[in-house]
């Protein structure tokens, strides 16, 4: 009986919630995201309190380039969409297509991360805007960096899931794992929307 969950094919409609373990994972992960929300809320609060504390360092208005950030936003939003496609194919029990869309998600994720690293390097080299420059810079790198670290973690997670299950396909045991990884990816995306608004748009407008 226990081994049944490892059989692929003939899955029910919502394979991620077909087993008790799956339902537990599903619900537990939602709670985890609730906690993550408080984590980011605290970071946003800190950032808002310090966004004008630039001392002698550059201000956000001086350094933020909206073009680059807009591109990053588009990329991450698209990756969220592609992960939705992946979950759609999971529910249709089409493992290959799911892997394909997850692969696209991962590529987009890497593109986002690459641009973010480029952005940081650019700030440090061209503006002398490092982690220790001012309270504002510390708060900026902490908030955006925490998000970046979440993206990196998500990439490792999804890739390892894809590789682990590449040969055996979808089953009741790994379906919840794929599903919560995609939930996590959406969450990262939502956080980024807030970062885009609060940090970049509000920072640029003043």
């Amino acid at each position: 009986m226990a081994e049944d969950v490892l059989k692929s094919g003939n899955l029910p409609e919502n394979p991620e919630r077909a087993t008790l373990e799956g339902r537990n994972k599903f619900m537990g992960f939602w709670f985890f995201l609730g906690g993550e929300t408080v984590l980011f809320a605290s970071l946003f609060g800190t950032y808002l309190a310090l966004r004008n504390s630039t001392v002698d360092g550059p201000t956000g208005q001086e350094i933020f380039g909206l073009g680059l950030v807009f591109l990053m936003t588009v990329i991450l939003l698209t990756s969220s969409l592609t992960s939705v496609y992946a979950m759609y194919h999971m529910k249709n029990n089409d493992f290959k297509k799911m892997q394909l869309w997850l692969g696209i998600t991962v590529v987009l994720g890497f593109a986002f991360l690459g641009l973010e690293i480029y952005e940081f390097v650019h700030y440090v080299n061209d503006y002398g805007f490092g982690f220790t420059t001012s309270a504002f810079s510390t708060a900026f790198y902490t908030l955006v960096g925490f998000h970046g670290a979440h993206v990196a973690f998500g990439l490792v997670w999804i890739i390892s899931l894809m590789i682990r299950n590449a040969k055996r396909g979808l089953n009741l045991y790994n379906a919840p794992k794929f599903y919560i990884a995609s939930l996590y990816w959406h969450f990262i995306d939502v956080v980024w929307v807030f970062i885009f608004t609060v940090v970049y748009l509000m920072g640029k407008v003043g």
Partner: protein
Amino acid sequence: MSTTADKKAGFGSVLWDYLTTVDHKKIAVLYLIGGLFFFILGGLQAMLIRIQLIVPDNEFISAQFYNEVLTMHGTTMIFLAAMPLIFALMNAVLPLQIGARDVAFPFINSLGFWLFLFGGIFLNISWFAGGAPDVGWTAYAPLSLFSESHGVDYYAIGLQIAGFGTLMGGINFLVTVINMRAPGMTYMRMPLFTWTSFIASVLILFAFPALTVGLFLLTFDRLFEGNFFDPEMGGNVIIWEHLFWIFGHPEVYILILPAFGVFSEIIPTFSKKRLFGYSSMVFATILIAFLGFMVWAHHMFTVGLGPIANSIFSVATMAIAVPTGIKIFNWLFTMWGGSIRLTSPMVFALGFIPTFTIGGMTGVMLGAAAADFQYHDTYFVVAHFHYVIVGGTILGIFAGIIYWWPKMFGTMLNEKLNHWFFWLFFIGFHLTFFFQHFLGLMGMPRRYWKFLSDQGLDLFNLISTIGAFGMAFGTIVFLINVVMTQMKGEKVSADPWDARTLEWAIPSPPPFYNFKQEPLVRGLDPLWVEKMQGDGKIKPAEPLGDIHMPNRSFVPFMISLGLFIAGFGVMYQGAMWVLAVIGFGITAGSMLHRSLKDDIGYHVHKEELEEEGDGSNG
């Protein structure tokens, strides 16, 4: 994986059993041992504090050491004693009360314990590495940045590790309650201890991330030249206070709500009456938790937030007295008309009611914003929070330990010694803390290494120290009782207290799969319902069948160990960075192992269960 074969196992295999267990009952034992160890450690630190303050101008310990001791006393008692002891009770009882075979995430449950333990050990290593943290358990910036030794780094990283564990424990219990209840166990039939633990878990989930962030900011400032709290660089020290208390105030309710739950189990059992106003008790619990998030700034009335903020937080704080009052009266009226047996858990409950009422009184007094200008940071506050935390949480924890001891270990603590423990501890407690209210009003601020002789503070400080010895003797009696009881090893029946809830329907201690057949719950206080309306046995909800169980795992230990090692690398940096690489490597590797290796558990087969005889749950 085998079940009964472990009975006469050697030390090594028992150790391995506990290192790898994912059974909530064994994890409860681990939490209990860990929590009691740190409780004794924190208690010894308390004794040092009281001995230092026994006479004016005392030079018993140095100012620096005193600050370390007071910091570690607070930190240890809150994070490493009270929290794990509460988790011990939750683990031991909650799944049984809802008729579950296990918690929702046995693996994460075990991970939570090991993170707590390694975090606690990490924090305490500071004693041997140049000095413990010396800035108070609140670690206000910028004092926490001024502190020169690595003590505060140990504090930040140690609590970070332990905090992850707590967060995971919280999520685990949330899902357990929502998804794992037995047939018929509706929300409004859940025992109050389950309810309060559930709500406390909600609080953990939303409060601990604020601490996580606060500790990260502190770590960045201390170890990576961040500027969050550095006024020179535009930082703002008040951010820490907000983050700390956004966590810290709900934390108080995380500690007290499960204790309320314990008493809400004990009082009905020993009054032979159902809990008076069950639904209003549930409602009051939820309301307390909700308001608990709205009042953090009452710790900051003197910070200068302005009269508007102070007034709002003041009124919100007073509002919490209403649901708390509802609870007190409901307990009183549960006893009203009952048949009260003065067993030791009940005596703890009876000691709790007046003590906690006094703590609540002073709580409302403290909540009156302007008056707090006099109370704030004095011994009045010290007295207040010891009345609620010791008078509430600690009495609750010990009442719970004594009450559920038979269920956890299958033996019964000696009642006579329990009463001795209670009276020594209780009288000692009031001697220690009652007079501290007056010390505060008479002008003694808290966290004072010494007080001077010409200020009229001598007598009450002396009484307070004498009382502290009473508490210490009481605790010693308890420990003796534990040792004697376990040496004797006299077994007790499934239901030695004539109790009401589901956990008493299965043997003491329960088999590793808890319920042979899922129980059918037919009302609030299911066992009592069956005692009154049936044959005193819980009806099964399913035929005897295979039981799915989780596999044991060493991975949680390794994940925690990795973070523990990495902590040193992050702190000492330089050549020690290699430790961070090794530590994070171990953690990441263990997580990857967990993620990639299938772990689908195993089944206990029907035939094995039948062999064990009587298939009933009674």
